[in-house]
Each structure stands twice: as structure tokens, then as C-alpha cells.
């Protein structure tokens, strides 16, 4: 409690510095190297100060135009995954928060069980079916799969957020003659907004970064940015580090910014969601 001694404080400060280095150094190294000239990247001794250049970004545009269509695909898939997951989760979460009948409880537990399945396992039976439906290499299949894997977390998160809303508000609205849809839209939805933001954060991070499904189910048309970056790492003629750094920087900046801006919702989501202790 009262360990204000200088030595304790110094040890703690050193510890925090070490943790920050561990977490941030890889990110900062890559982001700063993206602005170095290619020959400076592996230079010894390490160059902490340098004149920034856009050369790597130009190389990326020239050599890997598919990265930018990958980014576009990532945006499309992420936006629609968020929309679908929010709608489906909000509906299910509301029902779970407001019902007591066994059938609903069974389906709530069913959602949890399904969430425990390893994603790679469902690809084996899905692959032929998706081929047959000609959904391979489409945005739709990624959106559906991502939503399917996050709707259970979403439903349970929304359940705990909706449960905190006093039911009297809904009853008052019902007495005023509001229909069920109106109650849901005008009373419950605004009050559950914090939960929706928290869920959005989880889904954005997942959908923007997902690799395995995107690698298996897309080829050209719907290939997302993480898959393109992965491919840039495995070229036969050696890795173009400068272009890879530029791509990684572009890909990580938006999602890191979103997470930093909304981090308190991340914690709210973790504590209110399925991992409530």
C-alpha cells in the first residue's frame, strides 16, 4: 500500500518500460521502416533518425496493385459483417435477456457450444458446398462466415447489456401504445448503444484481420488485405521488405486507431460479454 520508496518506483517504471517496448517495438519498427529507403532497412548500426521517404509506398503501388483491391475487399467485408452481426446479435440478445422459457435458454446455450468449434474444422464440409453454390471467392461467403462466428459472442454480450435496461421502460412505452418493433427501436436500441459499440469493436478487429477463412475461400475477386500481405511474404524471388512494410502500415493503421479510441468499450465488452466472471 505505502510503497512509495524510490527503489520500488524505479523498479516499477523499468518494468512498465520493458512491457511497452515489448508491445510497441515491433509495430513502431515496421511503421517507421516503411518510410525508410530500402537500403536503410537492414542497415547496421540501426538508424533511429532518417529522412522519411514515400519510396516504399510507390513500390507497393507499382508491384502489388492487388493489395489495394484487397483493402477495398476488406472494407466491404468488414462493414457488412458488422451490420449483419449487430442486427442478428441485437435481436437474439434481446430475446435472451427478456425470456424465461426453456426453449430460448436451450438455444442460448447452443450458441455458446457452436462458438467453441474450431473454424478450420467447418471448412472441410463447407468447401464443396460453397463451390457448388458458386459462392467461392465472393464477399458474401466471408461476411456470412464471419457473422456466424461472432453472432454468438454478440448475442451474449447484448443479453447482458439489455438485461441492465429496466423492463419498466418497455412497459411504459407499451402502455402508451408502442408496438413491439417501436419499443425495440426507440427504447431498447438507444439504451443498448454502449453494448453495440463494444460489439462493433470486437467484430471490426476480427473481420479486418481474419486470415484463415479468407485464405481458403477467396482467390482474386474477394481476396482481403491480410491474405495479400501473407502472399507478399512468400515470393520465390525474396521478400520485398519495403513494400511489405508499406502494406502492413496501411493495413494496421485504421484498426489500431479505432481500438485506441474505443479501448474502454473493449474492456466493457470483455467484462459484460461471455467472459463475465
Amino acid at each position: 500500500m505505502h510503497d512509495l520508496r524510490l527503489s520500488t518506483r524505479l523498479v516499477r517504471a523499468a518494468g512498465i518500460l520493458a512491457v511497452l517496448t515489448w508491445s510497441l517495438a515491433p509495430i513502431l519498427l515496421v511503421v517507421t521502416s516503411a518510410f525508410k529507403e530500402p537500403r536503410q532497412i537492414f542497415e547496421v548500426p540501426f538508424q533511429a533518425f532518417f529522412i522519411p521517404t514515400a519510396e516504399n509506398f510507390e513500390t507497393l503501388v507499382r508491384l502489388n496493385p492487388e493489395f489495394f483491391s484487397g483493402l477495398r475487399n476488406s472494407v466491404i467485408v468488414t462493414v457488412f459483417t458488422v451490420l449483419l452481426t449487430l442486427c442478428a446479435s441485437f435481436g437474439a440478445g434481446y430475446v435472451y435477456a427478456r425470456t424465461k422459457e426453456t426453449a430460448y435458454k436451450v438455444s442460448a446455450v447452443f450458441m455458446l457450444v457452436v462458438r467453441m468449434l474450431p473454424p478450420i474444422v467447418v471448412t472441410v464440409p463447407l468447401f464443396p458446398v460453397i463451390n457448388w453454390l458458386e459462392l467461392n471467392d465472393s464477399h458474401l461467403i466471408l461476411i456470412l462466415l464471419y457473422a456466424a462466428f461472432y453472432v454468438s459472442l454478440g448475442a451474449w454480450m447484448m443479453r447482458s447489456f439489455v438485461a441492465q435496461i429496466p423492463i419498466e421502460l418497455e412497459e411504459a412505452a407499451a402502455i402508451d401504445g408502442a408496438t413491439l418493433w417501436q419499443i425495440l427501436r426507440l427504447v431498447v436500441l438507444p439504451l443498448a448503444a454502449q453494448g453495440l459499440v463494444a460489439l462493433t469493436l470486437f467484430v471490426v478487429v476480427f473481420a479486418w484481420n481474419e486470415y484463415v477463412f479468407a485464405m481458403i475461400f477467396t482467390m482474386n475477386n474477394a481476396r482481403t488485405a491480410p491474405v495479400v500481405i501473407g502472399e507478399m511474404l512468400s515470393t520465390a524471388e525474396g521478400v520485398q521488405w519495403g513494400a511489405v512494410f508499406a502494406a502492413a502500415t496501411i493495413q494496421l493503421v485504421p484498426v489500431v486507431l479505432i481500438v485506441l479510441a474505443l479501448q474502454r468499450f473493449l474492456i466493457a465488452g470483455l467484462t459484460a460479454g461471455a467472459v463475465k466472471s
Partner: protein
Amino acid sequence: MIAQIARRIDIRPLRRDASMPDRQRPPQTRHGFYVLLLLPALLLLVGLLATPAVYIVWLSFQKSTLGQEPAFVGLANYAALIADSGFWRAVWNTFAVVNVIVYGELAFGLAVAVLLRRVEMGRKLIIAAIIAPYAITESSGIVMWRFMMEPEVGIASRLLDGVGIVLPWDSEPWAGLALACLIAIWQHMPFTFLILYAALLSVPKETQEAAAIDGATAWQRFWRVEVPIIMPAILVAILFRYIFAIRLFGEVWLLTRGGPARLTEVLAIYLYRETFQYRNFGLASAAGVCMLLLSLLIALPYLYRMAKEVRRDA
């Protein structure tokens, strides 16, 4: 906020349902509404996850490949799986890697949570920095670590060389897996940390003070008082990380492709190769069923607890 909502309802009088004035609808009509609300979520889950999960069990008893009628072969796929040394290699790799990741993260995350809980100055910024790796895609994470660990030229590999540690991840299987563990811990420690940190902050100060008055040292207070209190959170963190670490794919795939000579394959990569490279659907399905059962077995305590919670309230 509640007043705001109430005002909103007052200002905008809602349309009244002519057939049922001023009265709540009879509750039995609500079931249709509830089912409608549940439908999208259930369709997604049943159509895309539950049905394939059941189908793979059926598939594991068939001899099948792409473009060929499946034929029932009983347990032949499982026999082939058990006889495949590659499968056992993948099982062993997964077992080792998952345990290193889960307990490495637990120890590290707990240490960071303890370190941070008395820090006031700049706490939000520090937490933001710790969370940052969590927001990064596996493939970018691999880019970063491969850059730092590039043999002889990477910054981290040169530093490690300086203290006499060599991690030849591109040639030695153990080193490849070790680096994959390191990256996984780097990326997922924020999850474990946040859960433990929230739990630590919610430990009442009084218990600490009482123990201090009774003469307990800081070490004793931590192990005998706080750790038992946050035990449920620790178990949740372990459980969730087990379930998610078993899926490990990208870290290993992008580092070593499971090589050299399939020696660094984990279960997810074994499954991927057998399915998409060798088109060996029967064997892959049998391996998939094993993964499925393993995941559910680990999840069982959690599912049991949640089922109990659902029965109690809601």
C-alpha cells in the same frame, strides 16, 4: 439518460394500434416476435457452423475425395489417422505449443496486471499501448517478427546473438515453433491481461488491509489473498485461451508453412494440408472430429457454468 428516453417517448407520441388500444398485447403473440428476432442468428449458426460440424462426423466414416461418390468405410479413416505419424507429430506440436502459449500468457499477463494496478499516471495510455498488438492481423504480426528475427540481419536476432541465444527458426523445427509461440503470446497477451486486470481492480481494498494488519508480507497477501479471489477470472482466461490457441494456424503457416518436412505442423495445418492439398477428405474429417471433440472437452466446464447461469436467471 433514462429521462432523455422518457422525454423522447413523450415528445413523439407513437402510433397506436387501433385493434388493441391502450393495452399490452397478450403475451402469447410475443413468441412469434421473439422467434423472428432469433431467426437471423440461428440461421447463421445452424447453416454455416452446426450443420457442417455434424456433417464432418458423417464424412469421417466415408471414403471420399472431390468429385467422387462417398462410400461408407466405418472406422478406416480413424485407423489411418492413428497410423499416420504426421498426425501424431501435429498432435504433439499442438499440445506443446498450446501449453506454452496459454501459461506463458497467463504468467506474463498476470505480472503486467500486478505491475500496472498501482500506476495512476498515464494509465490509459499505457493500457492502450499494451492492447495495440491485439488489433493487428496475424500476417502483419508475422511481418514484424520476421523482420526483427531475420537471421543475421534482424535487430532482435542480432541482439539475441549478442547474449548467445540463437533461434534458427527457418531451419530448426523447435525454433520455428518457439518463435510462433512468442508471436502468439505477443499478440494475445492483451486479452489475458485485460481479464486479470479487471479482476484485480475489483478485489476489495479492505481484504488487503486486513491481511496487512495481520502481518502478511506483500508476497503472502498476493498469493494467499488476491490470487484466490481472482481465481475465477484466471480460469476463464485459461479456458478461453486454450480454446482459441488450439486453432493456431496463421502464426505457424506464415512462418514455416508447417515445414521443414511437415515437422512444425499443428493440428489446424495438418487438417488444411490433408483437405486442400492432398484432397484426403476422409482422413481430414477424422482429424477434424478429433479437434472438435478436444475443443468441446476443454470448453465443457465453461459451458456447464454458463448453462447453470442461464437456468438460474434470465
